[in-house]
C-alpha cells in the first residue's frame, strides 16, 4: 500500500496557520483601485484596466513570511481578502457587518461564530469601504449593462429558478468570467520581458499608421506592455523584500534561502525560469497577479506536473536539488494556493464551499505529441502533498488512460482514502475525442486538456472556455423546478409565478410522450431566455472588462492582437450544466410506471399528492420509493428516461450560441447547487419532498441506488458521455473497509478502469462511513481534518452547513 511520508516541520506549521485561518477583509486594494479609477476615469477600459494593474503592482503591500519558500500575497495580511469595488464586491461586507451585527473586539469586527468560515475586518477598513460606496454606485463594471436589460429578464427573475436571477434581479456583470487555464508554461518559459517585446515591436511598427482594426490591436498591445511592466515591478518588489529579510536574517540556512529567492525573483521580473524553484515561483507570481487584478473565479493551475517537470529533471541531473527538497517546494506551492481564498457572501459560500479557491490542478494523462503516458515524478509529488497534508483544496484532477501505470493508480487511490473526493478520476479516452468532436480541438491540443472550477474541461493556455458563461453562471438553471413548471402549465408551484410559456397540466396528459414534450418545451423556452440574457452581457463585456493580463499568456491573443474576451483565443466556447437530472428521470419513470403502465393511480392523484408536498399521501410516496425503478440500479425502465433527459438537454444546448462562440457545451456537474436547488424546487413526483436536495450532478438521487457501484456505473453508461464537454461528476461513497488492504485498492482501480473502458468519463470517491460522519457531527473538534466531497468541491466536513453534511450521509454507502 502506498505510504505517505511526513512533511517538514515548517510545512506543518504553515498548514496549521492555514487550517486556523481567519480571512481578513481589508481596504488596501479598494483604496488603490478607487484612486486609480479617479485618475483614469474617462480613459478607455482597455488602458484603464492595465494602468490599474500597474498601480496595484506598485502600491500593494509586499509580504514574505518566515515559513515561506514560495511567496505572493493578496494584501497586507497573510490571509487578506481584498475588496473589488469596481465589481460591486465590497457592498455585501459593508452591509453584513452592520446587518448581522459582527462583534467588535480590539478595533476588529468578527463575523457570527455560527458561520462556517471565520471573517474579520478592521473598523478603519470597514469605514473606508463604506465611504467609497457612493463613488462606485454608478461606476461599476456592470453599471451600463444593468441599466437596461432585454425583455424576458423580469420574468426570469420573478420565477426564481436560479439563485443568480433572484427576485428583483442582480447584476448581469458582477464577476469576470474566469474559469480558465492560462498559459503558465508560456509565462515561465518565455518571461515578461519577451512578451513585452512582442507587444512593443508591433506598436513600434504601427506607430502613426493605425488602419482598420489596428486601433483595437494597438490598444491591446499597449495594455500588454503596461501589464508586463507591472508584473516586472511586482517581481522586483518581492526580490527587494527577500533581500531585506536576508540581510536581517542570522540563521545561515534561511539567509541563503532568502538570498536565492531574492535573486530568482529579480531574474523572473523579465526572464524565463531557470530551475524548479523559479518555475514554481513564476507560476505563483502570475497567479498573484490574476488574484489581485480582479476577483477572478476559477483561475486553474492546469497541467502542473507537465510544465514543471522539465525544470525539476534538469535540477536533479545537475544535482542542484534533492527529491526531498523538491517535495517541500511542492508542499509550499500548494499551501500558498490555499491562501488565496477570498471572502464571499455567506449565501454564495453555501454553494461554493468554505476555503475553496477553485485553482483546480490537473495531473497525469497523456503526452500531447506521442499520446503515451506522460506521468512523471512531479505527478507523484502532488499526490504526496495532497495526501500527507490532507488538503481539501485545490481540486485535483487525475487524468487516467489505458497506459496509466498501476503504481500511479495506487498512489491516487491512497490519496482518495485520505482526502474525500480527491482526486477526481478523469478518462482521457473519452475526454479527448469529446474535445475534438464538440469544439474542434486538434488532437494535440485535445490531449493537453485540463480541468477548471469544479471539473469543467478546457484547453491548456489556448482556450477562452467560459464553461459557466458570463456572470450569472449557467450552472444554476434549476432543471427540477423547470420540470415542476412543465407539469403545471408554466406555473412555478413554489411561488405561484406564471411563465409566459404554457405546457398544460400533468393531469391533462395521456402518455409519457406528452409529459416529455412538455418538459422539453419548457426547458427550451427557459434555456433560450437565460442564454439570451447571457449573450447580452457577453457581447458588452469585452468593452468594459477586457483581460490583457489573461490574454498575454493565451495562445491566439498575442498573435491576433485580440483580447480573449473578444474572441482572440485559439479556441472559443461557452456552456453550463444541468445538475441533478436523475431527479427528473426518476420523476418521469414514476409518472410512466404509476399512471400509464401499471395504472396504480391517475395522473390527477399523483399530481395532487406531490403538489401537497406528499402531506396525507405518505403511503403513495412509500410505494413509489419501493416499486418504481430509480436511476442508478441498471434498470432500463428508468435508465431510458435518464438517457432521454440528457439527450433532451444536449439537444437544447446545440441551439445556443453567442457572438464569440458557436459552441455551447453541455455539462452534468455542479458545485453544491443541488442542495440550494432543493430549497427552490417544490416536491417532485419521484417521492422527493420540498425542500430536500435534488440529485447531485450526474449521480443517482440520494440513497436511491441500491445495487452497488457497478450498477451505478452501468446506469451511468446509459447515455453517451462524449457529448458532455462541460464535464460530468459522478459521486460514489465507499465504505473504508473496501480499501482496507492492497487487494481492495487494486479492486477499486480495476472497477474504475472497467467503468472507463465502458465509456465512463469521470468518477469521484468519498471513502468514509456513516458512523464516522455522525461522530464528526457530534464532535467536530475530533474530526477537524475529515475531508469530504460535495459535488464540485471538497471541504472539511465539520465546516459544512448541516444540510450539506446530511446530504453526504444520505448518499448510499457502498460496502462489501
Amino acid at each position, binding site marked *: 500500500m502506498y505510504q505517505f511520508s511526513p512533511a517538514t516541520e515548517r510545512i506543518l506549521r504553515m498548514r496549521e496557520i492555514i487550517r486556523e485561518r481567519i480571512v481578513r477583509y481589508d481596504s488596501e486594494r479598494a483604496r488603490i483601485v478607487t484612486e486609480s479609477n479617479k485618475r483614469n476615469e474617462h480613459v478607455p477600459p482597455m488602458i484603464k484596466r492595465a494602468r490599474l494593474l500597474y498601480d496595484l503592482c506598485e502600491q500593494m503591500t509586499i509580504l514574505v513570511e518566515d515559513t515561506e519558500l514560495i511567496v505572493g500575497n493578496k494584501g497586507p495580511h497573510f490571509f487578506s481578502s481584498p475588496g473589488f469595488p469596481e465589481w460591486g464586491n465590497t457592498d455585501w461586507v459593508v452591509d453584513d457587518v452592520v446587518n448581522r451585527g459582527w462583534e467588535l473586539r480590539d478595533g476588529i469586527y468578527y463575523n457570527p461564530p455560527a458561520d462556517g468560515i471565520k471573517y474579520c475586518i478592521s473598523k478603519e477598513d470597514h469605514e473606508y469601504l463604506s465611504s467609497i460606496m457612493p463613488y462606485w454606485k454608478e461606476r461599476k463594471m456592470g453599471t451600463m449593462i444593468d441599466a437596461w436589460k432585454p425583455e424576458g429578464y423580469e420574468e426570469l427573475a420573478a420565477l426564481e429558478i436560479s439563485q443568480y436571477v433572484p427576485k428583483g434581479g442582480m447584476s448581469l456583470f458582477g464577476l469576470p468570467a474566469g474559469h480558465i487555464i492560462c498559459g503558465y508554461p508560456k509565462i515561465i518559459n518565455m518571461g515578461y520581458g519577451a512578451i513585452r517585446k512582442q507587444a512593443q515591436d508591433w506598436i513600434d511598427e504601427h506607430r502613426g499608421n493605425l488602419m482598420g482594426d489596428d486601433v483595437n490591436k494597438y490598444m491591446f498591445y499597449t495594455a500588454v506592455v503596461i501589464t508586463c511592466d507591472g508584473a516586472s515591478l511586482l517581481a522586483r518588489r518581492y526580490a527587494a523584500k527577500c533581500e531585506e529579510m536576508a540581510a536581517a536574517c542570522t540563521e545561515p540556512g534561511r539567509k541563503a534561502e532568502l538570498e536565492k529567492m531574492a535573486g530568482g525573483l529579480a531574474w523572473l521580473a523579465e526572464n524565463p525560469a531557470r530551475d524548479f524553484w523559479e518555475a514554481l515561483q513564476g507560476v505563483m507570481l502570475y497567479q498573484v497577479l490574476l488574484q489581485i487584478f480582479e476577483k477572478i473565479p476559477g483561475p486553474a493551475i492546469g497541467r502542473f506536473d507537465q510544465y514543471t517537470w522539465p525544470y525539476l529533471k534538469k535540477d536533479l541531473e545537475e544535482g542542484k536539488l534533492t527529491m526531498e527538497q523538491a517535495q517541500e517546494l511542492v508542499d509550499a506551492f500548494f499551501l500558498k494556493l490555499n491562501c488565496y481564498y477570498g471572502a464571499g457572501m455567506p449565501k454564495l459560500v453555501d454553494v461554493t464551499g468554505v476555503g475553496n479557491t477553485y485553482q483546480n490542478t490537473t495531473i497525469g494523462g497523456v503526452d500531447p505529441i506521442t499520446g503515451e503516458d506522460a506521468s512523471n515524478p512531479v505527478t507523484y509529488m502532488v499526490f504526496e502533498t495532497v495526501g500527507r497534508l490532507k488538503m481539501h483544496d485545490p481540486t485535483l484532477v487525475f487524468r487516467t488512460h489505458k497506459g496509466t501505470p498501476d503504481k500511479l493508480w495506487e498512489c491516487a487511490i491512497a490519496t482518495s482514502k485520505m482526502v474525500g473526493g480527491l482526486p477526481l478520476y478523469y478518462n482521457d479516452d473519452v475526454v479527448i475525442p469529446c474535445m475534438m468532436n464538440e469544439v474542434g480541438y486538434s488532437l494535440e491540443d485535445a490531449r493537453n486538456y485540463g480541468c477548471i472550477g469544479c471539473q469543467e474541461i478546457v484547453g491548456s493556455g489556448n482556450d477562452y472556455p467560459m464553461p459557466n458563461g458570463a456572470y450569472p453562471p449557467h450552472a444554476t438553471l434549476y432543471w427540477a423546478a423547470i420540470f415542476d413548471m412543465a407539469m403545471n402549465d408554466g406555473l412555478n408551484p413554489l411561488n405561484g409565478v406564471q411563465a409566459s410559456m404554457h405546457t398544460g397540466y400533468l393531469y391533462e396528459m395521456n402518455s409519457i410522450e406528452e409529459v416529455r414534450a412538455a418538459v422539453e418545451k419548457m426547458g427550451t423556452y427557459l434555456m433560450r431566455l437565460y442564454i439570451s440574457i447571457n449573450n447580452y452581457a457577453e457581447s458588452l463585456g469585452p468593452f468594459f472588462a477586457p483581460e490583457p493580463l489573461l490574454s498575454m499568456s493565451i495562445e491566439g491573443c498575442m498573435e491576433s492582437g485580440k483580447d480573449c474576451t473578444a474572441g482572440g483565443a485559439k479556441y472559443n466556447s461557452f456552456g453550463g450544466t444541468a445538475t441533478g437530472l436523475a431527479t427528473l428521470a426518476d420523476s418521469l419513470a414514476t409518472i410512466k410506471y404509476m399512471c400509464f403502465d401499471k395504472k396504480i393511480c391517475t395522473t390527477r392523484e399523483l399530481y395532487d399528492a406531490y403538489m401537497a408536498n406528499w402531506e396525507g399521501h405518505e403511503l403513495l410516496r412509500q410505494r413509489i420509493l419501493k416499486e418504481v425503478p430509480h436511476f442508478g440500479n*441498471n434498470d432500463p425502465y428508468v435508465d431510458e428516461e435518464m438517457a432521454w433527459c440528457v439527450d433532451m438537454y444536449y439537444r437544447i444546448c446545440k441551439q445556443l450560441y453567442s457572438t464569440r462562440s458557436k459552441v455551447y457545451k453541455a455539462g452534468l456537474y455542479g458545485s453544491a447547487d443541488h442542495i440550494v436547488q432543493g430549497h427552490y424546487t417544490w416536491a417532485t413526483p419521484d417521492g422527493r419532498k420540498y425542500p430536500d436536495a435534488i440529485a447531485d450532478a450526474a449521480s443517482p438521487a440520494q440513497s436511491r441506488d441500491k445495487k*452497488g457501484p*457497478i450498477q451505478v456505473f*452501468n446506469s451511468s453508461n446509459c447515455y453517451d458521455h462524449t457529448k458532455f464537454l462541460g464535464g460530468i461528476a459522478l459521486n460514489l461513497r465507499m465504505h473504508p473497509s473496501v480499501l482496507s*488492504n492492497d487487494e481492495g485498492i487494486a*479492486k477499486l482501480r*480495476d472497477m474504475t478502469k*472497467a467503468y472507463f*473502458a465502458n465509456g465512463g468519463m469521470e468518477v469521484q470517491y468519498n471513502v468514509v462511513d456513516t458512523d464516522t460522519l455522525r461522530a464528526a457531527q457530534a464532535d467536530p473538534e475530533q474530526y477537524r481534518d475529515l475531508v469530504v466531497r460535495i459535488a464540485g468541491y471538497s471541504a472539511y466536513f465539520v465546516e459544512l452547513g448541516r444540510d450539506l453534511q446530511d446530504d453526504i450521509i444520505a448518499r448510499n454507502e457502498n460496502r462489501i
Partner: protein
Amino acid sequence: MSEQSQIKGKIYDIQGFSVHDGPGIRTTVFLKGCPLRCPWCHSPESQSFLTQMSYTATRCIGTELCGECLRVCPAQAVEQGKEEVNPADKSVLHKAVWHRDRCLQCAACTQVCFPEALSLCGKDYTVDEVADILRADYAYFSGSDGGVTVSGGEPLSQIDFTEALLKVVHGEGVHTAVDTTGFVPQEAIRRVLPYTDLFLYDLKHMDSAEHERITGVPNELIHENARFIARSGGKMQIRVPVIPTYNDSEENIRRVAEFCVELGDAVTVVQLLPFHHFGSAKYERMQMYDPIPMTLESPSDETMERYRALMESYGLPAIIH
C-alpha cells in the same frame, strides 16, 4: 429453453462489487439454507432453507401514517408499539412491532409494507434469471481476475441449482468460485468441480468433537471433501474465521496450517477472517437469538498479524480479511 435453466434456487441476496469473496471484483450469489449453526454466523438469515419474515424497525414510518400491517395480519402478530419521537421532525409516532412467535409467515403484511420494514428474506429465482442479473457485471470482472461467487448458506445444499448456474456462467468464460462449508455429500463436490475455478473452503475447527460442539456437525466429511478436491485438481482458498474463545488457540491455527500443507498445491491462499459483530443487527431483524455475547471482542490486529506470519512460516501464502 432448457430444463436446467428453469431450475429454481432460493436466494437471499445478490451482491455486486463484493471485494472480499475471492479474487478480483466479484458478484456473489447468496443461497439460503445451511447444515451448520456456527454461533458467530453473521448471516443468520442464511441458515433456514425456507423463506422467512424479517422486520427492520428503523424503516417503519409509524402506524399513524400507515398501519396497514395491523389491518392485514390474520394472527395479531403485528401490534402497535410504544410511543416514540421521530428524531427528524420531532413528531410522535407508534411503530409497528412484529412478533415472530405468533407469525404465520403468510407474508400478507409484506405486500402492504412499502417502506419494506416487514419483508421477506429469500426468493426463488431460476438459473436464467440469476444469469441475466450477473451478465450486467461481466465487463467489470475481466480486468481484475474477478468473477462470480456462489455462496450461502451452503450453496451445495441446493446442488441442482448451483451446478446448473455454475455451468452457464463458467461456460461464458467467467471465473467461478464456490463458498462452501464442505459439509456436503462428496457427490455434490464432484458435480460442480468441472465448473468451479476456486473453492472458498472454510476450516472452522480442526478437532472434530469441538467442531461438532460448536457448529453442530463433525469435521471428518469436511476434511475428506477437501482432500477429494485436492486430489481432483481443484483449487481452494482456505477461509479460517478467527473467533476468540472458540477456535483462536495457537494449536488450532497450527493444525489448520498442517492440514493445508497436506493439501499441497491445491491451496492458493489462506484467508484469516477476524471476528466482528456486524451480524448482530440481522439477528434482531429476524428476531433470532444471537449466540455470541456483545462483550466478545474482535481479535487484535497484532493477533491476526501473528497468525498470518504463522501461516507463512508453513510456506502458506496468507491474507487477513
